[in-house]
């Protein structure tokens, strides 16, 4: 799994940082997504998919 994020689309809901904190964090100034692990291990895949589904601005892409 390769994760990419679009910080222009991001609206700083914090859903990803809440659901998959091992993979996503938030910029302390504007809350936009920070990608910690672009290639998370299989144990994190379910949480990352969940985070991508919860993103209100479709800022997370998985491939």
């Amino acid at each position: 799994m390769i994760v990419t994020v679009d910080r222009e689309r991001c609206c700083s809901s914090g859903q990803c940082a809440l659901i998959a904190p091992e993979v996503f964090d938030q910029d302390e100034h504007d809350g936009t997504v920070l990608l910690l692990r672009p290639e998370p291990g299989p144990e994190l895949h379910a949480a990352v998919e969940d985070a991508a589904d919860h993103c209100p601005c479709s800022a997370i892409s998985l491939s």
Partner: protein
Amino acid sequence: MTSAAQTPTELRRLLPADLVERAGCPFDPPAGLTGRRGQGPVQPLRLANGADAWLVTGLDEARAVLADTRFSSDRVRHPDATTDAEPRQVETRDDGMFVFMDPPEHTRLRKLLTGQFTVRRMRALEDRIREIAVEHIEAMKAAGAEADLVPAYALPIPSLVICELLGVDYADRDRFQRNTAVALDSTSPPDERARAGLGLYTFMGELVAAKRAAPGDDLISGLLDLPDNQLVDIALVLLGAGHETTANMLALGTFALLENPGELARLRADPALLDTAIEELLRFLSIVQMGVSRVATEDLTIGDVTVPAGATVIIATPEVNRDPAHWDHPDRLDLSRPRVSHLAFGHGVHQCLGQQLARVEMKVGLGELITRLPELRLAVPADQVPLREEMLVFGVHSLPVTWS
């Protein structure tokens, strides 16, 4: 506040009564919504003023509308069927009512605030919120074995948390809470409500002036580049969005738990359920009844329905969050239900700015209450709990409880 701020309230008055009154179970969507089940996820609706609107009841369709900014939130340039106003061509919006703006104007203001509401910052507030919650539970216990949970607990918690965020001095908090309580209470006489509303407006103006003179590390002090009127608007938006909503989730959430004793017992036995329990209560109760609407800026398609330019599209959140395509037995409260993206905080660029704060407030507020008052129960029959049916934000006017 600008007249645009009144829009959801106006919309509420134009809806057929059966779409907003909860005649049966206080936790289920209004009968007019459940009665329309099977009629498709996007349904035409005639408003009381004769205007046509569309009601969205499917989760996929609601998400599609809210993710598409061609469905506008800008009630100045695109007034909807609920407002008599003519569309206005304005160069730039100079108010601070960002909830009623579209990108890029909305984006600019929202981005100034989002850093203040990150998951990390909200978790850092957890201890302070716990102090506030415990303080109020102890006060209830000290005063006897019975209380109305709304004024004793549900309202003061979000009110004091907003004071912390906005940097309201301790000495001014009584005045702030008094005005807020009256201004937001639909049972107050109209002239008192108007006076309290004006009082809050004045209060925020004075607060902004005080922060300009002596900035602190609060939210307003971080936004002093904005003009005063925008700062006052923003402070009032945060108050309006963060006070009633959380208060009603605390009170109605407690009511729902007390009426589902099996679920409450599970939660008490396994506090690790608290996170999913909060998401489930948000989904199940969907207290923002009919406040979310958009205006189509061109002919647009939702699912297989085309709505014309200018159409008002109303998201029926309580019903969307019971979409059987996404939840098994959606009418059942199940605190261990796997997390499914619900619409209680909305979706798209306007999704609730304060949602991470709301989660912490609910987790701490409900968690402390059920732990510290193990004998908590209703002090009146459930059918005598007064419901906020006429309000934009659903909940209870009061919740008499006892714990002896």
